[in-house]
């Protein structure tokens, strides 16, 4: 320590210019000056341009009347609503398609990823073809393929394709029965919540008992019975309040039921198929990343193949899988902005319309960026928390 102090106090032998610290400060000062000058110049230009185009800056425009319709909306919206509400509708649509897309992509991805490691040659090849096809074409093309190549050439409503459970498929989308909740159906939801709470409680108790005594308890079957049984019981007790509104053929269209529009359907299918190919590769890498010794050791302990996978391989593979999986989820969310190409009113599409109508380019782009950044950060936070929970607990 002392010798270092002495060394540091010694005057540097080289020239003042060659001192890395001085150089560092100098370069940073240059960067700051250039940056400030650039920002000032840009700000000056922006203000100039805005005054010339007579656009008032600020977010006051969000309260103005939107005046355009949105085909799909999770909340009440009409053309009389405000610009702010239009952007909110877009945001909700983005969230909806991202969430269902993530769930489907994860399921397909895990199946295909495990399939690529299967003992079965045929299954392996089929999964490889799937991954290699979808990984190497642009997501936008997949969206167009579903939209113009598949869904647009379906038969018109009068010749709808009948599907099981009273659902229909035609040019205008996918129709399925809508559940109509009658009086007293709140009891079913309460029963469901109680069931989930009970299942959680049983699982906790069972684990404690197994830790203490080594006795196992059939947690899965008990939970399933409680979660399914209680709502069923409530359904019977409250006098069968649930009925279905089936889509019906009328002269020109289908009436009733729940309609999923082709825009949503093609975006959702394309994002799921595309992202699933990447998730499959991540899952494959994760499972292969677990060393063979682990499987063999588990086998030597007498675990059955299913248990080996569930108790030994998957928990370790998850640690490798989660970080890249997070970025795939974020990619899917960002790719959902491709909706604009087929007219699904997501955040980018509605904010783009607002931007075009009001001319508030700066504010519009800023809103878009802030919302996407917020979604990204939130997803990262949740996945980091999950990752920390799954991480190897070391001393």
């Amino acid at each position: 320590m002392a010798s270092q102090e002495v060394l540091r106090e010694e005057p540097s032998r080289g020239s003042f210019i060659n001192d890395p610290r001085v150089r560092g400060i100098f370069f940073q000062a240059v960067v700051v000056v250039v940056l400030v000058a650039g920002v000032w110049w840009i700000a000056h230009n922006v203000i100039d341009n805005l005054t010339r185009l007579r656009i008032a800056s600020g977010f006051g425009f969000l309260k103005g009347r939107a005046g355009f319709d949105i085909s799909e909306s999770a909340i009440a919206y009409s053309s009389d609503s405000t610009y702010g509400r239009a952007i909110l509708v877009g945001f909700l649509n983005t969230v909806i398609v991202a969430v269902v897309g993530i769930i489907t992509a994860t399921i397909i991805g895990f199946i295909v990823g495990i399939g690529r490691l299967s003992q079965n040659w045929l299954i392996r090849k089929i999964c490889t073809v799937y991954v290699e096809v979808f990984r190497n074409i642009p997501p936008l093309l997949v969206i167009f393929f579903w939209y113009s190549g598949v869904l647009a050439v379906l038969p018109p409503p009068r010749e709808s394709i009948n599907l099981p459970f009273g659902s229909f498929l035609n040019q205008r989308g996918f129709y399925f029965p809508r559940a109509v909740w009658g009086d007293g159906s709140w009891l079913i939801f309460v029963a469901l919540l109680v069931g989930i709470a009970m299942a959680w409680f049983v699982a906790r108790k069972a684990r404690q008992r197994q830790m203490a005594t080594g006795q196992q308890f059939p947690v899965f079957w008990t939970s399933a019975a409680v979660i399914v049984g209680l709502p069923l019981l409530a359904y019977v007790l409250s006098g069968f309040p649930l009925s279905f509104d089936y889509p019906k053929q009328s002269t020109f269209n289908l009436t009733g039921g729940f309609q999923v529009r082709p825009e949503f359907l093609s975006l959702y299918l394309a994002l799921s198929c595309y992202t699933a190919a990447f998730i499959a590769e991540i899952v494959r890498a994760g499972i292969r990343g677990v060393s063979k010794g682990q499987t063999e050791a588990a086998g030597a302990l007498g675990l059955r193949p299913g248990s080996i996978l569930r108790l030994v391989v998957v928990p370790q593979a998850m640690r490798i899988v989660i970080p890249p999986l997070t970025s795939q989820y974020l990619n899917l969310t960002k790719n959902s902005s491709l909706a604009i190409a087929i007219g699904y009113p997501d955040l980018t599409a509605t904010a783009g319309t607002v931007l075009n109508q009001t001319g508030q380019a700066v504010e519009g782009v800023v809103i878009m960026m802030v919302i996407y950044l917020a979604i990204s950060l939130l997803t990262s936070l949740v996945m980091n928390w999950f990752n920390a929970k799954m991480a190897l607990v070391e001393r």
Partner: protein
Amino acid sequence: MQEHDMSWVRAEMALAEPAPAGVAGFQAWVRKNLIASTGDTIMTIAGIALVVMILPQIINWAFINAVWTGPDRTACATVAQGGVQPEGWTGACWAFVNAKFGQFMVGRYPIEERWRPILVAILFVALLVPMLIPKVPRKGLNAILLFFALPIVAFILLVGGMFGLPHVETSLWGGLLVTLSLSFVGIAVSLPLGIVLALGRRSKMPIIKTLCVIFIETVRGIPLITVLFFASVMLPLFLPEGVSFDKFLRALIGVSLFAAAYMAEVVRGGLQAIPKGQYEGADSLGLGYWQKMYLIVMPQALKLVIPGIVNTFIGMFKDTSLVIIISMFDLLGIVKQNFSDPNWATAQTARSGLIFAAFIFWLFCFGMSRYSMFTERRLDTGHKR
């Protein structure tokens, strides 16, 4: 003596017996790979059912029933739709792709000037192929020609307006020409820019580090469409009145900056994987910062992250298709635009056009990923951890 006569030494090896039927040969392969267990057999049957269901349909559609040549939509429409095909016919309409092939390649580039993009394409291939084959010598000269001379020549040829070549607006460009030029420039710009950003992010100077982190994380957090919006809507506002630049250039800037942020993270991964001893070794040799990076760190770091770099390239190549949003027509955009051509509007047109575009994209991306695997193996010195 007698004993000596009885002794016997075998002079040659006995011939190897063939493996038992159960462990080698076709039968064993089938048993191991297709019907190892009951579950396996069920999966095999399901797989065969899937293939039998789908494959003949695809082959029928794409080859047997396909229409390869034809003057207009009648060739690909059924009688009821006003065409020549029998009722219930479905097949690919390659005639559409055939008729529009020129457009799909270069967009609305004037027909009498089309030799210019073709010449550029020939030059590009002539320079790229020797660059990719490791055995061909003079890589340095080749790289200079490919990355410095070719862009200049290509610019002069494609844009024109000098040396007696008529000027061609970039708004007339389209098809594969736009896709390839956007991705080539994007690749050429994003790699060096990404390296600089990655070095900045690992720099010890707080201001530079902060700026790099803000740039990288912001760009990575937003979709490319937003960046393109930014480039097409905001850039004109940032410039003084009267100054504006080409839409094509704006898209180029957007795509390059976007790819650079992703590239920076890939390169940073490589930088982090280099042991500290390498940095310290370079320091103790008296190398300056740039010498240290250029001679010691980067060659090792970049080699480690080749797959990541190529993945970013592939991602960018696919992402160029998004320029359709700011109404530019790359390969996908021009294919989509041609769906609305009334001369070719049939039920099969969209499908055929999209599958053709998908095939082209697939060829490029698959080629890139295979080449990266090849390079990875070639450069592997066994030091990888």
